[in-house]
């Protein structure tokens, strides 16, 4: 065996188990779903299904799909943006400014909320955000007669709930990327006469880009498919494509349409990442 075949063998044996696993449990079922999205009825129905493009056609034929898609993408962008805005400085502070035991402790404290059930978390948020809720009662007890605080069933409520759910992703991916950056690089930057900000922008930021990219992907991608947070926290204001997909599976039992909508969602994700990928490559990101 030559080293080149050995390298090939190494790649195969490192990626093989994970991708074999993914293939058996996700890719093959999803391929079946993809095939299903071109049929006019579920194969579990006794009548033979026929090929159709109608499920994809429906997406383009109905205006509301376009609105739902736009909102889902906008929601994803907002949530990713706020997670980055809040999470990156926190990750930076944790990686570069906090030393010793506190760092581990805070690191763990950031993940722990994640281990609670999403639904329980969302209901807790309703308790916080509604009028007569925690925030409202607290404000009223300190400032009687203050205007009522009621954010529940609004777009900001959806953003708050989703940012809360996904913030740990951003903090952790940025943290582990930032933590791998050698402080001497920063010192080198400073010694070459760069200001703190320039050093940050030209040295730290590019090197932590893989963390930002990973975090953003892990946030943006699921958020645009989300349906629970928008429904519970947004009331009538939280309409997303994810909710419609869910309905195709639970209410109308129209799997082919639900599958088609899912793959449109996936295509949007891939197009967006396809657009930013060359840019990231140029930045030296390893994503």
């Amino acid at each position, binding site marked *: 065996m030559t080293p080149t075949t050995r390298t090939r063998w*190494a*790649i195969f044996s490192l*990626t093989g188990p*994970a991708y074999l*696993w*993914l293939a*058996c*449990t*996700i890719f093959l*079922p999803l391929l*079946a*779903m993809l095939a299903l999205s071109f049929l006019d009825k579920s194969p579990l129905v006794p009548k033979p299904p026929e090929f159709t493009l109608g499920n994809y056609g429906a997406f383009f034929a109905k205006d509301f799909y376009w609105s739902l898609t736009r909102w889902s993408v906008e929601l994803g962008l907002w949530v990713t943006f706020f997670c980055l805005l809040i999470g990156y400085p*926190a990750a930076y502070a944790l990686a570069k400014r*906090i*030393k*010793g*035991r506190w760092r581990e402790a805070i*690191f*763990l*404290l*950031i*993940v*722990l*909320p*994640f*281990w*609670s*059930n999403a*639904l*329980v*978390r969302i209901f*807790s948020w309703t*308790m*916080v955000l509604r009028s007569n809720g*925690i925030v409202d009662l607290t404000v009223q007890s300190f400032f009687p007669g203050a205007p009522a605080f009621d954010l529940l069933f609004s777009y900001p409520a959806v953003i708050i709930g989703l940012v*809360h759910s996904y*913030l*740990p992703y951003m903090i*952790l991916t*940025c*943290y*582990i*990327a930032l*933590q*791998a950056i050698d402080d001497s690089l920063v010192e080198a930057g400073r010694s070459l006469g760069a200001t703190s900000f320039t050093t940050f922008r030209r040295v730290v930021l590019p090197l932590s880009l893989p963390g930002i*990219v*990973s975090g953003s992907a*892990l946030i943006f*991608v*699921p958020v*645009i*498919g989300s349906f629970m947070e928008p429904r519970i926290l947004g009331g009538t204001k939280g309409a997303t494509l994810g909710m419609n997909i869910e309905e195709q*599976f639970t209410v109308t039992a129209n*799997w082919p349409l*639900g599958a088609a909508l899912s793959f449109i*969602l*996936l295509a949007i994700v891939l197009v967006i*990442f396809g657009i930013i990928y060359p840019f990231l490559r140029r930045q030296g990101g*390893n*994503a």
Partner: protein
Amino acid sequence: MRRFLDGGIRLYLVLVLIFLYLPILVMALFAFNRSPLYGLPFEFDLVWFEALAGNKRLLQAGWNSVWIALANTVIATTLGTMAAVAFGRYTFRGKTLMQALLFPPIAIPWLVIGTAMLVFFFWVGRSVGAPGMARGLHAILLGHVALSLPYVIFVVGARLNDYPKALEEAAATLGATPWQVFRRVSVPILAPGVVAAALFAFAVSFDQFVISYFLAPPGVTTLPVEIYTSIRKGFTPEINAISTIIIAVSMGLMLVVARFYRFGGERSGNE
């Protein structure tokens, strides 16, 4: 100035933690509140913990969830780290495609994946003459690991900007087999990423509802399944109680772990 800055940084982290913990505290608060409908004003009562102690089904569900999540964490973290290492170490054809393939599991709603899995497993099971194999703990674990893998690969990948290739080569010249290199050099170097990934894998499994729900055999249930299916009738603060216990116990465990084991990176000289 530096001190002032550090004070500001600490304050900022505290604010972020408050934001993260606000709903958790609310959850815990209502575990101790008498009203079954999460009504205010607050009245302290342990009634929900008492109810929980008698609720075998919920306790068993919580226990099942923990076991599945642990098994999932071990498997997904190992397989995912290996794949991430391959992506970090080597440049090869098809890498970008393989990385892009990680998007479907997180982009496609779980409900769709869950349905696809259920039908696919059923179909495979039927064609090999064992339709019963479509469901069960093995199927749940298969599904959870698959859903956790992309998270693990992404998170570990975030650590791999500067891959320690020279260290691996050094280990190889010293006689370490590829597996020894991986275990004794790569893994410890990647540890912060791997630990973070493991925490994510646990969280993904611990909150996974659709897959468990579709693939669990009758009579077997997990905590998220219990929570989601009880939503129609209404879930009681017992759920808050068990969630509070889980968070409190894991917080205790993790802090103990943090006390004895450092994964935030190598020790620096002056510590």
